[in-house]
C-alpha cells in the first residue's frame, strides 16, 4: 500500500468506522451510567437541585483552595488540545467538508506555539505519574495508554505541520490514523470523562444543592 492509499483509507473508511465506534461506544458508556438509576430521595429538600447541578458543571472547572498548581498542566493541555482541534485552518476545512460549517482560524504561528505548549504539558503530566507518589499509586496501565493515544495525534500533527520525515503523505496518514485510534478507544477508557464529567458534576452539585450547600 502506498502512502497515498493509506491516507485515502485513513481519512475515508477508517475514519468513518472510528466515528461509528466512538458514537456507539459513548452511547453505551452513558447508558451504563443512566440505566443504573437512582432512588428517589425522600428527605425534605431545602432547595432545588437543577440549578445547583447545572452550576456545578461549570463552577467545578475552577480550582479550589489554592490547588491551581496541581491543575496547571491539566488546564494547559486540555485547552491547547481543544484550540488546535477547532482553530487550525486545515481542521476547519475538514469540518467544512463534513458538516458544511466553518469559522475563522487562528494564525498558524500561534497554533504552532500552542501545540508545543500542549505537548510540553502532556509530557509534564506524564512525568508526574512517574514521580509524584500519589499519582504513581493511582496510575494504571489504562492511564498510560490513554496518555499515549492523546499524545500521538498532537505529536504526529506537529510533525506533519513541520514536514518532519521524508514522506509528508505518510506522516499525515499516521496523524489521521492516530486520531482514529483515539476515537476508537475513547469510550472504553477514562477518556470518556470528557462526556461523563457532565453527569458526575451534576450529581454532586444537585445532591449538595438540595441540602442548601453550594459546592
Amino acid at each position, binding site marked *: 500500500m502506498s502512502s497515498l492509499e493509506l491516507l485515502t483509507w485513513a481519512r475515508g473508511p477508517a475514519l468513518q468506522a472510528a466515528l461509528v465506534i466512538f458514537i456507539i461506544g459513548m452511547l453505551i458508556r452513558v447508558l*451504563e451510567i443512566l440505566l*443504573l438509576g437512582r432512588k428517589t*430521595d425522600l428527605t425534605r429538600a431545602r432547595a432545588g437541585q437543577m440549578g445547583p447541578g447545572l452550576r456545578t458543571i461549570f463552577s467545578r472547572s475552577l480550582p*479550589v483552595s489554592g490547588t491551581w498548581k496541581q491543575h496547571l498542566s491539566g488546564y494547559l493541555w486540555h485547552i491547547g488540545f481543544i484550540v488546535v482541534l477547532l482553530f487550525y485552518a486545515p481542521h476547519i476545512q475538514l469540518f467544512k467538508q463534513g458538516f458544511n460549517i466553518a469559522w475563522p482560524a487562528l494564525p498558524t504561528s500561534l497554533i504552532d506555539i500552542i501545540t508545543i505548549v500542549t505537548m510540553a504539558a502532556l509530557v509534564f503530566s506524564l512525568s508526574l505519574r512517574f514521580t*509524584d507518589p500519589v499519582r504513581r499509586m493511582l496510575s*494504571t496501565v489504562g492511564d498510560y495508554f490513554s496518555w499515549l493515544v492523546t499524545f500521538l495525534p498532537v505529536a504526529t500533527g506537529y510533525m506533519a505541520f513541520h514536514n518532519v520525515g521524508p514522506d509528508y503523505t505518510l506522516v499525515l496518514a499516521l496523524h489521521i490514523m492516530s486520531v482514529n485510534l483515539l476515537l476508537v478507544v475513547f469510550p472504553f477508557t*477514562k477518556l470518556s470523562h470528557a462526556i461523563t*464529567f457532565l453527569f458526575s458534576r451534576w450529581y454532586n452539585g444537585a445532591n449538595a444543592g438540595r441540602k442548601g450547600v453550594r459546592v
Partner: protein
Amino acid sequence: MSESVDRAVNAMKEQIDAPIASYFSSCVHCGICADACLFYTETGDPQYTPIHKLDLMKRVWEREYTFAGRIKKWLGLSRNITENDLTKWETLVYDSCTLCGRCSLYCPVGNDIVTMVRKMREAMAASGHAPEGLQQASKRAIEIGSPMGVTLKTLEAQIKHAEKEAGMEVPLDKQGVDYLMLLSSAEIAQFNEIIPAVTRIFHEAGVSWTLSSEAFEGTNSGIQIGSSDIAAELIQRIVDGAQKLKVKYVISPECGHAYTALRWEGPNLIGKPYPFEVVHIIELLDQLRTQGKLKLEGKDETRQTFHDPCQMVRRGGVMEQPRNLMNMVATDFVEMTEHSLMGWCCGGGGGVSANERAEPLRRKVFSKKREQLEEIGVERIVTACSNCRNMLEEGLEDNNMDEIEVVGLSEWLAEYLVTSSPRAAGDDS
C-alpha cells in the same frame, strides 16, 4: 471466593447507582483529591488519597457494570477481591476517613467521594470488616438505646440537675408540643450544660418543646459503621417517639452525624417521608434570632473562632446560622483561613473517634487544626457538635494548647440570654 468476600461484593453491587457509576467513569486519576484530605496532607502517605479508599468498589463497578470490564471478566483478566483486600481497606475506609466531605469539593470532575465512602462502609460492615469499637457501639445502640450506653436513668438524673441549674422545669414526654429535642450521647454523659441552656433559651423564646423518654438519643452509629439496617432501626425509634408525642418538629442536637442521619438519610432509610420536620438546634436558634425571640445582651471581647462541624456545615447546609449567632455577642470573632465550606475536620468524625485502633492516626492529623489555630491565635473555639468538642479538647491537650477554651454554641449563647424569670440560687453565670 469466601463467604465474606461474597457478602462484600453483593453489598457493593447494591450500592452502585447512576451517580456512583458516573463518578468512577469520570475519575482521571489526577490525585487532586489527596490535597483535600487531612489524612494525606498531615501524613504524606499516598494510601490516604480519597479515591484510593474506593479501589475495591471501583473494581466491582468495572467488572460488573462496564462494557470493557465485562469483556475483561469474560477473558478472565479481572482482578478479584480477596479477604486480604478487605482487611487492608478496612483501615482505609474507617480509620482514615471521617466522612468530612472535603474531597468532594476538590475533585475536578465532580466526584462525590464521601458519598462513595459512606456506601463502601455498607459493604465492609456487611462482610464483618468493621472496627471493633464501632461494632460495639452499634450493638449498644440497638440493645441499650445509646452507643455510649447512656440510659433513661442517666437522662433523668441530668434532667433533675438541669432543673436545679435553670430554675425551671425541663419538660419530659409532654404531648402536643411543637418541638421534640434530641440529645447526643456525649451531651447527656459529658456536656450536659446543654440541657439547662436550651431549657432557658426555649423558655425565654416561648418555644413549646419536650424531651422524650423513648426517643432522646440522636447519635446514630448505624450511619457511622455503614449499616443501613441498624441506622433505620434507630431512626424508626425517633419517628415513633415523635409521633407518640405528636410534635411538628424534631430538633437535632449539637452533633453533626446525628443531623446527617436524621435530616439527610432518615426518610430514605425507613423508606417514607417523616410526618414532622427536622431542624438542627443551631438552625432553630437562628430562626428565633430572625424572629426577634432570641434576646441576648452583653458583648464578649475574647478573640474567638468557630470550628465548623463537617456534617452540619459542609454536608448539612447549616453554614451561615452559627456565624449570625456568634456575631450577636462576639466582638472579636475571627475565621480560620479555611472555614465554612472549606473547613478542616477535627479528625474524629464519621466514627473515627469510636474506633480505638485509629487513635494514634487521629491524634496525629490534628496537626491541621493546630496549624489553623496557631495562625489566628484565639482564646476560645466555639463549635456546635459534641464530638468535635471532644476531639478539640483532646487535641489541644495533646499539643499543650489547652489554654484555649472549647465551648458549645448553644450553651455559650445561653450565657448572654436576657432573663425575665429569676434564676435558681447558686447560679453565677
